[in-house]
């Protein structure tokens, strides 16, 4: 299962980087969304996918899934929601101000260092 997950994570990162490198603002946002999904799964996979029962105490169960990566991911999910919302607004405000979403046209110049 880990091998499969590693490949899935690789594909997620690949797609994310590809989108982030593109010139369209919206694609960059989509890319960051995929990147956070990839990162969440990466943390989970690195911790190990073993465990037959969720990390909630129950009588007679000893083989819990690893709770630490789960706690870290939970935090990360909520943060990535906040970040996505933020850059979404940032993007469409930029679009409204500059009338373009072409990253090549939004380059810095000497006057706006």
């Amino acid at each position: 299962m880990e091998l499969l997950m590693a490949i899935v994570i690789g594909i997620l990162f690949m797609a994310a980087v590809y989108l982030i490198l593109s010139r369209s603002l919206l694609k960059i946002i989509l890319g960051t969304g995929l990147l956070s999904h990839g990162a969440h799964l990466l943390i989970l996979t690195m911790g190990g996918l073993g465990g037959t029962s969720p990390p909630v105490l129950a009588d007679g169960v000893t083989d819990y899934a690893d709770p630490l990566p789960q706690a870290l991911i939970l935090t990360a999910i909520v943060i990535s929601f906040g970040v996505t919302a933020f850059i979404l607004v940032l993007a469409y405000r930029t679009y409204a101000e500059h009338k373009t979403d072409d990253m090549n046209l939004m380059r810095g110049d000497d006057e706006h260092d």
Partner: protein
Amino acid sequence: MGFVLLIFLPIVAALFIPLLFKYLKGIHTGWFVLFVPIALFIYYAGFITTTMDGGHKVSELQWIPSLGISFVSYIDGLSLLFTLLITGIGALVVLYSIFYLDKDREKLNNFYIYLLIFMSAMLGVVQSDNVISLYLFWELTSISSFLLIGYWNTRDRSRFGALKSMMITVFGGLMMLGGFVLLGIMGDSFSIRELIANSSSFIGHEFFTLALILVLLGAFTKSAQFPFYIWLPDAMEAPTPVSAYLHSATMVKAGLYLVARFTPIFAVSEVWIWLVTGIGLLTLFWGSLFAVKQTDLKAILAFSTVSQLGLIMSLLGASAVAYHSDDAIFKFAAFAAIFHLINHATFKGSLFMIAGIIDHETGTRDIRKLGGLMSIMPVSFTVAFIGSMSMAGLPPFNGFLSKEMFFQSMLALRNFELFNFATWGILFPVIAWVASVFTFIYSFYFVFKTFTGRNKVDKLPKKPHEAPVGMLVAPVILATLVVGIFFIPNLVGKWLVKPAVMAIQPGLYSHPSEVDVHVAAWHDFASPELWMTIALVGLGVVLYLTMTKWRKLYDIQPHYLSLNVLYDSMMMLSENGMNRLSRFYMTGLIRTYLMYMFAFIASITTATLFLKNAFIVDMDSFTAVSVYGIMTAIILVAAVVMVILAKTRLAAIIALGAVGYSVSLFFVIFKAPDLALTQLVIETVSVALFLLAFQRLPALKTHGETKRNRLGNAIIAAAVGITVTLVALSAHSQKMIPSISQYYKDTVATEAGGGNIVNVILVDYRGFDTLFEIAVLAVAGIGVLAMIRLQLARKEAKDENK
């Protein structure tokens, strides 16, 4: 704690300057500053009795003991002489500046802070026994000099001059640091005294000559020797008190100090003697030659300073010969060097102050516009006359004495037999004599073109009158010294010069009184130096009177063949080169920067993985593949592909949602109910968010990305993806330390009283994370609010304007 702390006294005093400047507006800040050099001068003067006996005092303050770096104040004859110059001239210059700088118009706080920093730095240079702290202070003098030259920072010339001096002296300083490090390697110590003690073992060491040249580069750049002197004329943009203090009396002499201090180490080398003497003499000649060409009073003085520094340098070179020859005259050279150093400080300081007074009172320093000021400014004229005549080397002024000794030393070099001096030695007295002729000419030129001749008062920018008394005090004191030293040269020699000579040639004496020099103004008719002087005066007077005729010869030198042009073009070249280089990779496109980052992440991580043999996959630890897992993975990958290929915004958003939902399915499969729940809800809310913003989002366009672009992106993306896969696998297969998870599992019920371990970690074990995380969330919320509301507010404001 000993007197080493006194080095820092001026810097500490500088801390109070802003307060004094701000709250005691009525009193010129300089009056407070004046206390510092006076107090230090009086304190340090007390050391004379020690050094007169050939003794020294040491005070140490540890800085980085593990590296052998400390602040050591080592006071012997040489450092004491410089210390007294720094504090003595410093006091006079501060006094002068009080009248020179207007307290209502100038930024006095800046000026005095820089000046005090300089004072500390300079004291540090001449007292440090540790070469590393010496270097530190050395660069601090460059920096404070930079700040002082650029004091009138609204003027282009000031900034240019400041930068130029900084570039050249800091370059030299860095070279010198290299030399110090090499010395440290050879002698296994950073202490100058220990280095001198071990110096006999350096001879023949592979680093010896290199260290010698590097140290000399530091000294030559600082002391404005050929060809590095070009910064000094441009440094004249500084306020005149600064020119008098830094650029004639003290800072530029730091290089001389360095040469004198390191003579015991390097004197054995032929290279040292040739370089120090040769460059010194060349500088003497060059400086005096070009001083005559100048028309700005301060520029004349700047070139004359360059030339005089060369003179002292060549004497120091000659004094190194004493290590090879028994001829007493070379011991004499060291005396002459130190003696002239004192004399130069007195007469050049006074001349600079007079130049400042003329500038201040008439509004111009252009010698072509000046003339006939003698009757209007009699006191200034007297001082200028005394200073100039001393500079020209005429009796009864101190410059005469040291110039005679200079001639004697140069004549003696003729007879020195080692190192090819027998062949070339005759050049030394000849060049020295020619240079002295020019020195004579520019001295006359300076004083008589300004104060005598036709009265041009009407054309001056200001109506001139004699300077206020306070301004004249300092130059008059210096002029008095100029005359005074002529009559008591041997007393000065006993108190100051001989102890310093002992520091330059320590192996040769055990007590300063053994320096067997008696200065006399009159030798006898047969002495060659007397005839040299007489011939010099004769030729000098003739040339001065015919100056207008032959000065045109200077125009022969084409403009493009000067060192300044070389410097300018070097600066231009490096500036353009750097600009082009940075423009080459700084495209201003975020995409380019991201590509660098991703490419580096991928290459560095993979390289480390394989170089460190960190890529280990432990197949046995893998869990069994489940059917649900495979199915979810297929759905997820399909959704990812859809995101990339989507032609419309809506399709892309929905596909992204699908990716999120399949991720939450994975969470279910991997027994993470909290995550699954959170992910599900978040995905729903996110999609709603996207749809709310849908109208305002730009359409999905490729913006004409070429295939090549996309291929590049795809390659980097693939590299990153593969890297992450490899990292995921090897990170899973090897754990450096056991996970803390077991602790959580064991204690969750007893310590935290909970059952859901994930939630307990969030709110209890790792509560800090959560606290900051909700803070981030709140910030993001406020950020969104701000971005939209602020824009609304602006829109409304615009509407009102209509």
